[in-house]
């Protein structure tokens, strides 16, 4: 077999792998499998959303009408841009352009910060006006017409909250990557963690791509 024996065991390769590439491919498959579980977990929420959206279209429309789609729109653009910078950082690493890669990683973190700030701003607004999930929803204050509007906000907080948690975890991971990249630990020979976190970050983006129209626009 054409096993490349040029770099059999460098420091990053664990003893049970044949070589760096073997390890990279394995790690990547692991990440993909993990992404499947993410898809199915968020998917469960989407299935619930779809079913109740079909059962209570008016209530969902009412819920969505209280959300500010402009904030969601800006956040969509921010996340897409961050996905782009994340992809580019790997691109730079593959070409061994280490400092550019570091810049792109920090840019990604920056986008994450912006996203979370907008989210926080949005949440505070909702809290103040009494748009809380389930039985906490302030019916009088919000002037809710549908009796179970709390369900919409249940979905809203569950989906965006879980997504936000993923953004935060992703940001933490990218900061860790950026610090390691600054020390020059990644390059064309070894960038497995960046690739893995990258895929994770894109899935976070991908989920938001569905969340934005479903929660803010269609409702």
């Amino acid at each position, binding site marked *: 077999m054409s096993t490349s024996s040029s770099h059999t065991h460098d420091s990053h390769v664990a003893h049970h792998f044949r070589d760096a590439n073997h390890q990279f491919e394995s790690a990547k498959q692991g990440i993909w499998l*993990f992404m499947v579980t993410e898809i199915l*977990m968020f*998917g469960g929420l989407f299935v619930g959303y779809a079913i109740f959206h079909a*059962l209570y279209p008016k209530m969902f429309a009412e819920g969505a009408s209280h959300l500010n789609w402009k904030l969601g729109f800006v956040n969509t653009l921010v996340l897409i841009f961050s996905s782009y910078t994340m992809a580019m950082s790997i691109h730079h690493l593959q070409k061994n352009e280490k400092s550019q890669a570091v810049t792109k990683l920090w840019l990604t973190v920056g986008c994450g910060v912006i996203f979370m700030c907008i989210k926080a701003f949005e949440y505070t607004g909702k809290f103040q006006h009494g748009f809380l999930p*389930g039985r906490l929803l302030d019916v009088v204050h919000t002037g809710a017409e549908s009796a179970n509007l709390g369900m919409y906000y*249940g979905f809203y907080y*569950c989906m965006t909250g*879980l997504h936000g948690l993923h953004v935060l975890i992703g940001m933490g991971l990218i900061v860790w990557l950026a610090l390691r990249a600054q020390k020059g630990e990644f390059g064309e020979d070894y960038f497995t963690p960046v690739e893995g976190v990258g895929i994770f970050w894109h899935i976070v983006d991908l989920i938001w791509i569905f969340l934005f129209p479903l929660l803010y626009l269609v409702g």
Partner: protein
Amino acid sequence: MSASTHTASHTSGEVNYINEFKGLKSWFTSLDHKRIGLLYMISVLFFFLVGGLFALLIRLELFKPGAQYLTPDQYNQVMTYHGAIMVFMVIVPGIPAILGNFFLPLQIGAKDVAFPRLNLTSWYVFMLGAIIAICTLFLGKIDTGWTFYTPYSIKTGTAATMMVVAAFVMGMSSILTGLNFIVTVHKLRAPGMTMFRIPLFIWAIYSTAVLQILATPVLGITLLLLAMERTFGVGIFDPNLGGDPVLFQHFFWFYSHPAVYIMILPAMGVVSELIAAFSRKTIFGYTAIAFSSIGIAAVSFFVWGHHMFVSGQSEVAGIVFSFLTMLVGVPTAIKMFNWLSTLYRGNISFESPMLFALGFLFLFAIGGVTGIMLATIATDVHFHDTYFVVAHFHYVMVGGTLMALMGGLYYWFPKMFGKMYNETLARLTFVLIFIGFNVTFFPQFILGAMGMPRRYFDYIPAYQSLNSISTIGSWLIGCGFLLSLYVIVTALRSGEKASDNPWGAKTLEWQTSSPPPHTNFHVEPVVTAGPYEYK
């Protein structure tokens, strides 16, 4: 498996995975899949003991009608803990995490699983979940049954939220294990170990891992929504707020039906190994058994509605699910007949692992045919949620999985620890467990046919005699397991030294020393033939 590994004899005092590093810390930080397998073994067997005690309590209370030792609320808690502990902490992690962890890399000729650090993490995550679950015992208890059906689980004042979080955390551990195993099977097979040369145990573990990956996340989100429901009353599963409690059952069984195959598939894998090894005969229909594992895994996702035939699910859905459930019967039947054919013209010996394997066939045959009775929609209407169901799934889960786990432990014990146990006592454990099991659970089929509902603290006098027999049987099972604990402990302390391949089996793990060295093989094996070449 005629592998060209070195077969030099190993003298005692050789360095192996057990004695290479010393001290507790070396165990709790070990990345070695074998040591992690043992960590799982100790914890799972401990939880099994706890879950078993709860089971004995249940049977004790049901010895006679009326209140005996427990109040109804206590009984409901005991019943819930028995279910939750046995499902989430014993049977689901059982064979994959103990035997799978230990033997998956060995059987495919790898030095470790793909992600050793993740492997250790998954044990810690599992323990975290288990500890949270155990904590509920002291912080409010739980009485929902392991199924957490809404709206009861929303309304009950017990620590359901905490238990749900525990199940969520243990689910995460299950996902990580599954992920690890899939990549290991895909990427770390030894040279020459093609997918159709891996042992059938690996096919079973592999199919299980696929289920763990695909089904468990939905359980996660379901439990999360349930926790939300309890905390905020979002109304997704609460009928008072426009939600649908039956939808919860759909979500729950989307995981929990595949989960019963997470529990049984690895057992089937173990049995394939045992039957081939003790018949000294190549397995009949390797490909059919391998594909039936994958087939069962795939079809198991399409049948969950058979838990809901009378739940208020529509007639159409009920019929579709009944039809699809029948289809699962086919690969299961294939497996049974293939094992039987493997015995044909074999060279069969009856050491304790083989006894457990044959016991498995016996119990699984009964578990299987009663499964068809439950899949048939008209008869299920009568049997649903009665003791018939209880008996059926104990025949499959306990009679199947626990028999296979015990058989597997006895089979691989010499490899894991390099020591032999007392064979006579081991056979006695089989006799006790097998007889005790049938005495406990066969009467429950009849009780179910008579109409005794499950999760009953008390029952009408007509059911008494069978219940008493069942309770007596449970003591026999208890003695059997206590005896096996004794067999294992004495073997660990003063067992005779085992040879590298006491059974003369052909799979790769028997080609290395007992116990294996830290890196599993002294020389990387090169595989040139299938796993059961007894020519």
